[in-house]
């Protein structure tokens, strides 16, 4: 307890130092520093946290929380919370998420104390084990109750770790997605690509930790760094909104002559980016370019133009740039975005409404979110993600219900009643996409799962019997196709040029004689 107080004091010291550093730019911004706390939950979480500490991050407090005392003792974090002092007696949870949850519940007060005053809480956890999967959602819950915004950095286990672990991880992920504002999800399988095949396993894990740490740090920097064009919380949340899907994250840094190009290249090479291929499907992409005072406008311009090639025309760019004297000669790029789980058309519901639904089930617990920031609109998807999981594994989900009183306290129908009237106005907002808004809610025989179908295609078939509902996604698809066809039609008469009279080269339905830039819809000039 006293430890935390002293820690906070040092934290403030740190803040003062930063003011000094920032003095030359924008001294009036000092009150803008947002109290941030990073908490690592479980073994993997602590490892990441250690990495963050080693890489050095000011402007935020770092807390390690674990059931295993040994591992906690070896952590280099400045603040530590032992979870489940009496339940686990300083041992681990043995891979049991329930135990992890109970442990976190027992130590709720300590966690609450550790997290006090924070407006933004990052939770790092490796899902699949006991403490990470069990305690992280509870910690997130506590943070939320205290009015902080919560972003979770979750690592999913390798496939070879077994099905059980990955199903535990998926379940925990779904819960995290329900509670937190956003989840940045790292798939260990993808991280495998990071290290050279011959690199030692130690190095491979270190690299994975480093990637997570890098993203934590870059997000913190993103928010804290004074910007010429500033990206804030709201932008970050907007980029991560519509979660439940994959998070795209890339960070690159370079100090060579061609640094703009190289930094972007590096960012796109991040395993979470899939070489930038996934970016095309993202609806919103947050980009922050920061560099030393020597960063030139043309560099930023080159970089952004290059980035534009990887995203589609409809993508909303949340762009920010910052100058930081400490960057020296370096230039860094941070890319953040998220994909929906299915490639469903991104008709994101308006921000505020789902928040109301979220508050409703949380009502029995008195401290509702007073947070001034717009909250994430992930609830519909989140419950979607939760529900199928529950169907697959009824035993586990029953336990989940017991353990998570908050989520399930109100009867199941409650969120639906809230949701139904909302869905209709949302549909009306997009007129040509949705010709039949009214009959749609009527056709729902069974409440909870009904929230998803308009967005998810596969689960549609088994549940849906009413013919009224099917027309709903159909016209949407049709109208999209129409748009696409129109574009090609425009070019049709002139496209083949010199090859007009020769036999067309058609591969996979594309006439390759038509210029590539036309087919790929890249605007030239």
């Amino acid at each position, binding site marked *: 307890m006293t430890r935390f107080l002293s820690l906070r004091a040092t934290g403030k010291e740190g803040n003062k130092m930063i003011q000094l550093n920032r003095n030359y730019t924008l001294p009036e911004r000092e009150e803008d520093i947002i109290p941030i706390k990073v908490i690592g939950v479980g073994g993997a979480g602590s490892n990441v946290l250690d990495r963050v500490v080693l890489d050095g991050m000011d402007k935020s407090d770092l807390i390690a929380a674990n059931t295993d005392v040994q591992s906690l003792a070896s952590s280099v974090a400045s603040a530590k919370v032992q979870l489940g002092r009496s339940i686990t007696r300083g041992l681990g949870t043995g891979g049991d998420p329930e135990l992890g949850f109970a442990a976190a519940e027992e130590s709720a007060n300590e966690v609450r104390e550790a997290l006090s005053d924070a407006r933004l809480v990052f939770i790092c956890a490796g899902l699949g084990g006991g403490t990470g999967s069990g305690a992280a959602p509870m910690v997130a819950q506590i943070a939320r109750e205290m009015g902080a915004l919560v972003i979770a950095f979750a690592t999913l286990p390798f496939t070879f770790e077994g099905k059980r672990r990955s199903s535990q991880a998926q379940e925990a992920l779904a819960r995290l997605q329900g509670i937190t504002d956003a989840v940045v999800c790292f798939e260990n399988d993808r991280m495998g690509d990071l290290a050279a095949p011959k690199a030692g396993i130690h190095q491979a894990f270190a690299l994975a930790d480093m990637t997570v740490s890098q993203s934590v740090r870059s997000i913190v920097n993103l928010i804290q760094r004074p910007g010429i064009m500033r990206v804030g919380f709201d932008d970050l949340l907007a980029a991560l909104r519509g979660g439940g899907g994959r998070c795209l994250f890339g960070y690159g840094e370079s100090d060579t002559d061609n640094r703009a190009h190289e930094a972007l290249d590096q960012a796109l090479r991040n395993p979470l980016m899939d070489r930038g291929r996934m970016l095309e499907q993202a609806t919103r992409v947050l980009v922050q370019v920061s560099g030393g005072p020597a960063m030139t406008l043309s560099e930023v311009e080159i970089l952004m133009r290059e980035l534009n090639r990887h995203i589609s025309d409809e993508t909303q760019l949340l762009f920010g740039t910052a100058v930081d004297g400490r960057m020296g000669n370096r230039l860094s790029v941070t890319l953040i975005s998220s994909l929906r789980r299915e490639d469903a058309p991104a008709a994101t519901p308006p921000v505020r409404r789902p928040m109301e639904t979220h508050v409703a089930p949380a009502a029995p617990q008195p401290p509702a979110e007073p947070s001034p920031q717009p909250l994430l609109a992930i609830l519909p998807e989140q419950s979607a993600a939760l529900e199928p999981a529950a169907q697959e594994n009824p035993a586990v989900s029953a336990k989940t219900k017991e353990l998570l009183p908050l989520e399930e306290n109100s009867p199941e129908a409650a969120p639906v009643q809230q949701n139904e009237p909302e869905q209709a106005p949302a549909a009306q907002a997009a007129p040509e996409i949705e010709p039949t808004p009214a009959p749609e809610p009527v056709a729902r025989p069974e409440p909870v799962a009904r929230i998803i179908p308009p967005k998810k295609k596969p689960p549609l078939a088994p549940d849906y019997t009413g013919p009224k509902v099917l027309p709903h996604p159909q016209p949407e698809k049709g109208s999209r196709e129409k748009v696409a066809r129109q574009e090609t039609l425009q070019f049709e008469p002139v496209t083949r040029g010199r090859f007009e009279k020769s036999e067309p080269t058609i591969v996979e339905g594309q006439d390759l004689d038509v210029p*590539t830039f036309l087919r790929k819809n890249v605007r030239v000039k």
Partner: protein
Amino acid sequence: MASNDLMVGLEIGTSKICVVVGESRTDGTTKILGVGQAPSRGVRKGEIVDFETAMQCVAEAVADAEQKSDLMIKSVYVGVGGAHIQSFNNRGSVLLPDDRDEIDEQDVEDAKISAREVSIPAQNAFLHCIIQHYHVDGQDGVLNPLGMLGQKLEADYHIIHGVRTRIQNTIRCVKELPLEVEDVVFTALASAQVVLSQQQKNLGALVIDMGGGTTDYILYVDGAVKQSGAIGIGGDHITNDISMGLRIPMARAEKLKTDEGSVTLGNCLPGETVVLKDDSGFAGKEIERETLNTIIHLRVRETFELLKKQLDEENFINYIGEGIFITGGCSLLPGIDHLAEDIFEIPARVAHAQTMSGLTSAFQNPQFATAIGLIKYAQAVQVERPQRRGLSRLISKFLPGIR
């Protein structure tokens, strides 16, 4: 024999027709005596679409080569390409009769015939049947089974075939000149002969011949051809893209491509422009360099990606030890090797003909790789041929009806 040593390669390309006259020397090297070329018309995507015009152009090129080398050209090796060319691998096998266990010439020939006994589309004809390896009684990797003892001889062949009528069109075009056609050779196979050394073939290499109308490829592993084929996209497409994207005439676009084009993106200053001169040499339209490069980049990238997809159908690309060799006119685009490296994730370089003497300017230009390769191919074939012909003639004398 002197006339036999003189070899002429003729490539009817989409953008130009090349004739290379070479001489095979006793020490095994090849000397280039003359190179003739003429701009090609009536050819699209490596295939003849206007017979009369194409024939005229061939005649021009041959005349040019005759003049430069001061020789009369009587017979040529002709390169054929085009997207219709396909390939596959097949294994043929023969069982030796019980009373004999030494493999002879005839068994090898029979194995080849049995390998060819596969169904290819009715309109197609075999172009090449290239031996990869022999297996004797299950023993792998036999290079020459002649004289070995065994009961079962199997032979892996790489078979290249194409649409008969289109190959015949090319042959007819040459025959009407009139010139004799010694052989028709798949262009990528010819290019590989000069671009790759035997050692590189053994280590495994991919040759991409990106010409005017088509992109041909051939992949060697363990010294044997494992995969080959062609895609109907080439430099013409790039020119066409530029012409349409920047709204300039084809001829301008072609010049712009060769003079200023590059496939590298992101290394131009924002707003850097190229001034397009008009016929009288005055400054005309200004074109943004990055735009030009983008158009080229997208097309080349797409072509390589398409190629990668074709190569990925079989797994041979992972056995490449030496890397990718890019040749043909498009290989002159700056940065194309880096792009190939980026896409295939294998070291790539631009290559031109090696191990030749004579007109150096000719063989240092990747545009001539195919034509020079034809000579090299001819040389290789001629070394084998006299013996084989002699033997098979003997055989057919003794065993009429078998061949």
